[in-house]
Structure formats: C-alpha cells, structure tokens
C-alpha cells in the first residue's frame, strides 16, 4: 500500500465512526445507557447506510476524476466531461414524470433505475463515438482523445438542455421543486437500498479503472508514445467509459449531481504520490470517500433550518478551491 493510500485509509477509519455520531442527535459512545432514544435505530438504519453511501459516492467520483485527468493529461479534467453525469441526471428527471404511473412498489426504484439507464445510454453513445473517433487511432495523427472529449461535452450539453426542458415543463409545482432539489445532490434520508445499488457498481467501476491505470501511465508521454509502448487506445477508451460510467452513473443514481469531488481530489492526492495516474486512482478513491463523508457530516450538523444540500456544500468548498488552483497554476508550480 502506498503512502498516500495509508494516509487516506487512516483518515477514513477515523472519520467513519465520527460521522456516525454526528447529526441533529449526537450519540455519545461512552454513555453507559443509550444517550438518545432509538440510538441503535438511528445508527443502523439511518447513519450507517448514509455514511457508507457517502464513502461509495466519494470513492467512485475520486477514482473517476483521477482516471479522467490521466486520460486527458489535464489536471483540470473532471468525470463530468464525458457527459455521463448529466445524462444520468436526465434519466432521473424523466423518472419524476413516469414514476407516478408505476405501482408504489416499483416507484421507489424508478429514480435510480432511470438514472442508471441514462448513464447506460451515455456509455453506449460514447462507445459508438469511440469506435469512430479512434478508428484511425493508429494513424498517429493524434487528436483522437480531444475529438472524443468534445463529443462527450456535446452529449453533456444536450442532456443538460433536455433536463432544463423537462424542468420548465414540469407537470406541477411540487414536481418542479422535487426535481430542482434532487439535482442539487444529497444523500439525506437514504436507506440500505441505495447502498446496495451504488456500492457494487462503484466497486466494479473502480476495479475497471485500476485495470486501465498502467495504460494511463504510458499516456503521460503523449498519444504517439503510448501507442509505441503497446497501449491499445480502443481498449483503454472502453475501459475508461465503463469505469467512469459505472462510478459516476451509480453516484448520480443515488445522490444526484455531486460536483467538484472528481476535480479536486486528485489534486489533494497528487503531491503525496509519484504523480502517475496509476498511483493516483486508489488513494483518490479513499480521499474522495473522506471528502464526501466530511461534507455530508458537516451539512448534518450545520445549524440551518433545512439541511444544506450536499451538492451545494461541495460546490461551496469546490469553487474557491478551484480558483486557488487556477491562481497557483498561473504561478507555474502546478501538478
């Protein structure tokens, strides 16, 4: 285990129990008798799934961010660039329309199911485009990756436009506020169901990204050099679509849009590693888990009338950080 992995694994081991104790009702682990009524219920049915969900989402987004920055060879890349998150969100928004038509037993599952279908649609589209944009991948002409990323951005903006359309045409004011609220991202009132949906997908997704890691390292030297080192660009792109699709799709399905994690986390991790993508993915997963866990614990204990949405909280942290990052880049001591 690398130094960075150890640091963030240790931090996570510390944060996880703390996050279980924090909230509207504080639980004192040292009290002989339960310090709050229903303490066990709160812990097992509310806070534990919520904490595990934060860990799963953060880990997936962190690993996806590290992989995307490695693939695009750009420290400003973000897992959202492929358009998977907005398309998953579009799927979720669609479920607000059809969810009411389903029997109640299915309705609870319709949102994550629709979001995952959205992510799957984006992945299928990206795979189709990948086949075309890289079909002359061995031509040495380069630019295949840039072309592909542009295609991803187009999918993202199309999905964004359709989502906006769906919002303006919301069937009623309640649905409208539900959609907008959901889009802001949160893991309030989630149950074990969501954990079972997200965790396996995130684990598989991170596994796929780890398989791609060594090829991402070779890409450090540019597309032609990577090709000359035996990297198969088509296979790499498929692995990336699958890995990012699974991790990001799963996180949108259970939590809505959670921004900035994938962008920031690799920057926190990079100075602790040799900076190659392969040394970054594992620690970024752990650091992402820490970050989302901290943010979600913070929104729980902030003394506000309604709980601050997790997505908003992370953007509140993320935007100033990103600004600082840009200024630091201008000074030239970047990455």
């Amino acid at each position, binding site marked *: 285990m690398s130094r960075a992995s150890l640091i963030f694994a240790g931090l996570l081991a510390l944060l996880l129990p703390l996050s279980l104790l924090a909230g509207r009702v504080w639980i004192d682990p040292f009290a002989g008798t339960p310090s709050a009524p229903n303490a066990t219920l709160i812990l097992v049915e509310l806070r534990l799934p919520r904490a595990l969900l934060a860990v799963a989402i953060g880990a997936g987004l962190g690993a996806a961010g590290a992989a995307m920055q490695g693939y695009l060879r750009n420290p400003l890349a973000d897992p959202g660039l492929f358009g998977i998150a907005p398309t998953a969100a579009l799927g979720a928004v669609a479920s607000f329309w059809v969810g009411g038509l389903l029997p109640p037993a299915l309705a609870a599952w319709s949102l994550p199911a629709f979001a995952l279908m959205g992510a799957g649609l984006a992945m299928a589209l990206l795979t189709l485009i990948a086949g075309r944009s890289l079909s002359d991948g*061995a031509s040495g002409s380069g630019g295949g990756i840039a072309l592909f990323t542009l295609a991803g951005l187009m999918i993202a903006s199309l999905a964004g436009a359709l989502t906006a359309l769906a919002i303006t045409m919301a069937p009623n004011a309640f649905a409208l506020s539900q959609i907008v609220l959901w889009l802001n991202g949160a893991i309030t009132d989630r149950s074990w169901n969501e954990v079972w949906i997200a965790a396996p997908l995130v684990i598989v997704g991170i596994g796929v990204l780890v398989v791609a890691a060594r090829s991402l390292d070779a*890409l*450090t030297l540019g597309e032609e050099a990577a090709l000359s080192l035996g990297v198969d660009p088509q296979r790499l792109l498929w692995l990336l679509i699958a890995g990012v699709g699974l991790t990001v799709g799963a996180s949108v399905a259970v939590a809505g849009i959670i921004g900035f994690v994938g962008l920031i986390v690799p920057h926190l991790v990079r100075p602790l590693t040799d900076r*190659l993508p392969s040394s970054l993915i594992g620690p970024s997963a752990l650091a992402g888990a820490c970050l989302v866990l901290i943010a979600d614990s913070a929104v729980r204990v902030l003394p506000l009338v309604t709980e601050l949405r997790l997505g908003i909280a992370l953007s509140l942290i993320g935007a100033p950080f990103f600004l600082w990052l840009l200024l630091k880049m201008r000074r030239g001591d970047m990455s």
Partner: protein
Amino acid sequence: MNVLEAQNISVERGGRRVVRALSAALEPGTMTAICGPNGAGKSSLLLALAGLLPTAEGAVSLGQRALESYPAAERARKVGYLPQGADVAWDVSVESLVALGRHPHGDARGAGRDAIATALAATQMEAFRSRPVSQLSGGEKARALLARVLAGEPDWILADEPLAALDLAHQLRLIGHLRSRADAGQGVVIVLHDLALAMNHADRVLVLDEGALAADGAPEEALDPAVVSRVWGVEARWLGEQGARALVARG
C-alpha cells in the same frame, strides 16, 4: 537478423499521400538519418517504420515478418519510438519517467529495474533520478526521454528530431549516446534537420523529397551538393574533411 525493411511503402495522412513507394532495408548496428525539407514526410516515414502508422501500400517488416502482425506489446519491446518534442503530462521524477519505458515488459518494479538503471547510466542521468522533470534543463530532459526509450531495451530506436532545441554541446552528447547504441548492435534511425550532424555521425542517410526517396547511401554521396541543391533548392558546399564537415549554403 532483425532487419527493419520498408517494402515499397506508401503512407497516407489526412487523405494526403505523404510517403510514396519507398523501399529501404535498414541494418541493425547502424545509425540511419532521415533528412529532407519541411513536409517531406520524414516523421510519417519514421512512424510507419515504427509500426504506428498503417501503410496504404506495401509493408514494413522486421526480421522478415510483417510489423503489422506483431502483437502490440511484442512490437513495443522490439521497436522503441521517441516522439518529437518533450511532452510529459505530469511532473514525475526522472526515474518514474524512465520506468515508463518498461511498459511493454510490465516489470518496472521487478526485473526491469536493472534495465532502468542501465538506461540512466548510459545517458548520464543517474544523479538526476529523483529530480522532477520540470526542474530539468532542455538537454537533461532530452536525455531522460532518450533513457525512457533505452530502458525498454528495444532492438530498434527510432527518434524524431531528438536534437531539435538542444544547444551544440547537448546535440553532440545526445547523438553520441545514440551512436554508442548503434555500435552496441542496436538499430538507430533518427530524423535530423541538421545536415552536418547527419553527414558527420550517420552511417547512412535517406533523403526524402515530397515523400519519395531522393537519395539513399553513405552520407558523402546521399548529401552530395548536387542532391542538396536538387532537394532543398540551395547552393551548398561542404567544408572540412570527412567526419568533420560543415555546410555552407547560399539561397
């Protein structure tokens, strides 16, 4: 033996034919320079020889076997390619950079460590091994990137303008490293802009003009003033004696 041979190859890029019906058999243990005016197809030829650019016609073979038929990793172990420019996306240490050369072997942390150490030694970069690439000078970076190729222990080293942007001393040093690889039995092919460097250091020069082979042979004949005049459109004269020539040109 591991002869690298272009058999009547044509190469197209972006719908344009950039290499035309070119044949050349390159021997291991020699240093071949590819020269020609801008846009003559030098880089495309090198990419095709490296198996990274498909040929529209003809084929490149390595050791009598079509380069295309090699699995990517096996080809990568035999043919090392050094792209033009010093493009390193992340500020890795010299040692991590050089270790990337073991990618086709997959043993950077195991058996490949000896090869990495040898490559660092061959390019006199041992003292820099833990230095981040952002803190290297242009010459040091060029050597580190060459060490990356050497670490893969390829039979062939194909380098695209490895001396561009280097000062005189660093040019001589780097070409000296490449020369010693050729003397050790590896095949070396380099694209060179500087005709004097090609004249003084290469065993063989391929002169390209609009994608076709304009001259091929020992430097003294292939870079004969008549060829220079025909291909570059410049009246030129070689000064000095063999092995220490300088080119004087008038437009």
